[in-house]
């Protein structure tokens, strides 16, 4: 495999603080650059746990245990860094600027639409007003929400519809020009039309950003993703190109799941 991996999860295990058993066991999963990788599997199998390890948001709460490696490619030097080695607050912040995250429920901040998108940029140290404005506008344009909000940038983001809020959250993450974007069931709280808009947007974004998406929806996984990982009770059962997983799975368990026999 000569293709570029933006992230590479190696022999990764994870145990929540105070939990008896690990929630993830020896996961090996590559994340291809500028592709969409989908994670599927029955609820509780560890999809969110794995996704949340990729920007180490778990570390917001103390006491979790990691094992193995999660490499993140440094595109300029071509070297891999193991993000599990990160210890300093500053390096966490850098990691999260490089690896963005979108949650299941939209999480607009209680401030204006403009300020929502500017939030991460300001944290990243951008103070110049003109540059800030440019970046906010281009993030909103790039997230297929510009025409809907361009006349109300000063209004409270809470006033947007659920689907618009979710696209705003994507714009907010995209504004930082992350290398990877993690999405945890980003459409499961949305109506079909908003879902369609987000799916289109994800396909658009992968030109610049590598995407990992957790989804419950088989059609969504097959429509959107280039690669699919099927997980079951804390283990990665099968990983392959998406059409292989859906049309010609190697494992019986995968076949049963993607054909809807359980899950």
């Amino acid at each position, binding site marked *: 495999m000569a293709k570029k991996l933006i992230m590479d999860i190696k022999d990764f295990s994870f145990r929540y603080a105070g939990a008896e058993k690990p929630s993830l066991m020896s996961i090996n999963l590559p994340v291809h650059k500028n592709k969409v990788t989908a994670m599927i599997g029955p609820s509780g199998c560890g999809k969110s746990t794995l996704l949340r390890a990729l920007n180490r948001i778990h570390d917001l709460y103390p006491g979790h245990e990691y094992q193995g490696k999660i490499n993140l490619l440094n595109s300029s030097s071509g070297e891999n860094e193991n993000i599990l080695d990160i210890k300093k607050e500053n390096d966490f912040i850098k990691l999260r*600027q490089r690896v963005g995250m979108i949650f299941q429920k939209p999480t607009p901040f209680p401030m204006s639409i403009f300020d929502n998108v500017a939030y991460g940029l300001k944290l990243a140290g951008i103070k110049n007003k003109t540059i800030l404005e440019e970046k906010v506008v281009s993030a909103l344009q790039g997230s297929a929400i510009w025409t809907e909000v361009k006349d109300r940038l000063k209004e409270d983001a809470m006033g947007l519809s659920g689907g618009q809020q979710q696209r705003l959250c994507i714009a907010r993450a995209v504004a930082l020009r992350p290398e990877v974007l993690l999405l945890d069931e980003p459409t499961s709280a949305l109506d079909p039309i908003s879902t369609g808009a987000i799916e289109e947007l994800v396909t658009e974004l992968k030109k610049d950003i590598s995407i990992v998406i957790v989804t419950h929806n088989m059609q969504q996984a097959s429509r959107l993703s280039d690669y699919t990982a099927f997980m079951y009770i804390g283990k990665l059962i099968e990983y392959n190109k998406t059409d292989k997983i859906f049309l010609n799975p190697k494992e019986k368990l995968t076949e049963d799941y993607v054909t809807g026999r359980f899950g």
Partner: protein
Amino acid sequence: MKRLIINKIALSLSVLSALIGLVFLAWILVTLFSKGINSLSFSLFTQDLINGGLRNLIFGQFLMALIATIIGVPLGMMAGIYLREYGHGKYANIIRDLSDIMMSAPSIIIGSFVFVLIVEPFGSINGWAGSIALTIMLIPIVVSTTDNMLSLVPKELREAGIALGGGKHQVILSIILKAARVGLMTGILLGFARIIGETAPLLFTSGTNSFWTTDLNNAFPSLTVSIYNLANFPTDKARDLAWAASFILTMIVLFINIVGRFFTRDKG
């Protein structure tokens, strides 16, 4: 069938007890209104107690409550933020329990405590002591409000801030407090309404004063303490003044409460 009957009985009993409560509340308010309004006059607001007015008392009561708010709100909020956002485990729980106990401590005890702590060493009752007694009453209210209101902010909002490269403090200051601001404001207002009507913590800390003063090192005018004194006076004039003072105090507390509720209703 049996369950239906029990249900009906329980419902009637609750309605009945609610009614009894309301009757007494209405009774108190009606008495207060009829007696208070009769004794009300414009000069109450322009004269001090020594000349038969209430001006210095209203001012003193407000000032001590305001000082308590200025000192108590930041302290209480910081403690509340610590408990909700940083404190984990036993240590935080002990502080939380202590704060809850403080909140239900009889206010006369807090008055005695401040008497021993400040009034005795200082040598006389004074306005600072009264303000501090009110501060001690207010802090646990603010702690618990902050703790509760922050707990209503979904954890996803914190995570979203962190995921955008925020540090924990930045996220708390710029997002979480903002998301909880309506609840926090309401809680602070209700806390203010609570302490402005207190008598016991002031009784032997600030005492009261018949004259106009802004000097907190002296016995300080207090509406509630004066109500207590006037009500025990044998003359009709003093009692009328006590009614008027009670009426005004009730209006103030009612007004602050209504403003507080209005906030919550407006923004959820």
